[in-house]
């Protein structure tokens, strides 16, 4: 029986592509949910618990400044984690599928 599917449909159905998609989604969806929740928690804390934000920690540096700076830190860390993950776990698979497709 002749395969009537397009090249892309066949690639899409291949186990290698399924693995690439699942690796991508397994990382970006939970990570997006995590940073959104962390950011919303921060915004809600700023609105509803300003007195907590005002607790001094080090001289005039208070909880609010530290938690705000932690938002910067988490953004930089997630960026670094994603780059490492993408370089090691996504790029090689994508590259191998691309090479095979362009070889057809």
């Amino acid at each position, binding site marked *: 029986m002749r395969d009537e599917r397009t090249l892309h449909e066949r690639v899409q159905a291949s186990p290698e592509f399924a693995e690439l998609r699942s690796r991508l989604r397994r990382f970006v969806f939970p990570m997006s949910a995590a940073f959104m929740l962390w950011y919303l928690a921060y915004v809600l804390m700023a609105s509803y618990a300003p007195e907590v934000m005002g607790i001094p920690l080090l001289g005039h540096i208070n909880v609010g400044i530290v938690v705000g700076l932690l938002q910067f830190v988490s953004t930089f860390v*997630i960026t670094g984690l994603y780059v490492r993950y993408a370089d090691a776990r996504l790029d090689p698979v994508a590259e191998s599928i691309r090479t095979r497709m362009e070889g057809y």
Partner: protein
Amino acid sequence: MSEKLGSPILNISVFAAFVLVTLVVVFRVSRSNKTASDYYAAGRSFTGPQNGVAIAGDYLSAASFLGIAGAIAVNGYDGFLYSIGFLVAWLVALLLVAELLRNTGKFTMGDVLSFRMRQRPVRAAAATSTLVVSLFYLLAQMAGAGALIALLLQIPNSNTFGQGIVIAVVGLLMIVYVLVGGMKGTTWVQIIKAGLLLVGAATLVTWVLGRHAFDFSAVLGEAVEKNPSMQTPTGAVKELGERLLIPGLQYGASDLAKIDFLSLGLALVLGTAGLPHILMRFYTVPNAKEARRSVVWAIWLIGIFYLFSLVLGYGAASLVPGGAERIANAPGGTNSAAPLLAYQLGGEFMLGIISAIAFATILAVVAGLTITASASFAHDVYANVIKRGTASPDAEVRVARRTAVLVGVVAVGAGILARNQNVAFLVALAFAVAASANLPTLLYSLFWKRFNTLGALFSIYGGLTISVVLILLSPAVSGRPTSMIPSLDIAVFPLANPGLVSIPASFLLGAIGTFLGRRDEGAAARQAEMEVRALTGAGSEKAAAPKTAPLPKVMV
């Protein structure tokens, strides 16, 4: 109130030097501008780091540069909250949008949204929302230019003619950059500007910290001590002091204000990855990996810049004589914090540098917006909706250039009219519309297999209409003394920012439209092509001439 500040001649000379240098660069890089891909996407020949710096240059608009430092100086912690939303937003772009968009599209956001849909209706919708978002953003930048002129060139707000001429000169320069340099020239202007901005800000930050023995806590302490209270421009007296260091000064403590702030936070964090002029920057690199590197560079530079802003804002409150009160009441309002601080530290010369950077900022951002709006009109509307894909690339670029001139003229006219409008309001509007109309549609088309034409039209037009209508009916437009039109009261919607309602509504509408609509013809094959291309980069647009780097020849 008039206040003498620095020397306008010096301010103009430093700015003129910037214009001269950038014009030379733009003319040099323009020699290799030939194809549509050169004009729209700089031949896809920028490296990730170069594009990352350009993105930072594009993103750190006047609202970021002058606005955030000023907001921190006058409203303390609440200004800092703003910058965090603007930064965290980049994770959406990094994780969910940048690489997939680079692999799928060619020149515009419409390329991605219409990839597996019926071309004409979806492209028309994408172009509509691109033009609306870009125009609001453009208006905000031009309104900011007016405020800056008032402060730096000492042309008072009452002198409409004088300010109008300066705005017209800014508009004219921007048209030259775009017409001559295309995306390549515009990108170099943004790179140069971002470099100047970061170096300028770093110098001021070192200076501020140096005055406080490099102890950030001492900067905060002096800001608190020197500003026990202030009289606002409306005459009310506001308690500051320790309150500068905790949230709530700007947005207030009422329940409504809290919900409004949540709404703003949502629009900020979801808006960035839907701004068409930011999305278009991802097409200027050769592949998805470089797109990823550009976002990484952008995140670091933007993050570092916002950390600088934190020091500059509290530094201005502590070091500028008269503190928060003088800043809030200066011509140009809170926007004057960074220039006043520069004058206090480094006198006329430093003020001249910072002023020139501020002008350069507006110029570069406006050029980026103009090229985005003109590309969307020429590529989506003219070539694909009107000519149904039969227009030659040459004709398309010709239309894009003409549109750029038209956008420039509209920007100048609108800038003169919008001189006294609230810049932050206009920028928040652009972010809310981008987050409502563009982001849900982008995410659905990249990640949801079943999404179809009707769904895309529902989420774009639905998000666009709901966000714009809610803004028109909000207290930002009417009903309060601080509104755009205080004499009118049609504010039936209580929140100043519509994000909390319009963003979920747009996601919902996209889903409803998808279930109501029919499957698009050949949907399975198109979806397979889009997904395989998005994830692997197979078949994506290649760099025009991979070997020629877009570096301008070394200048003598």
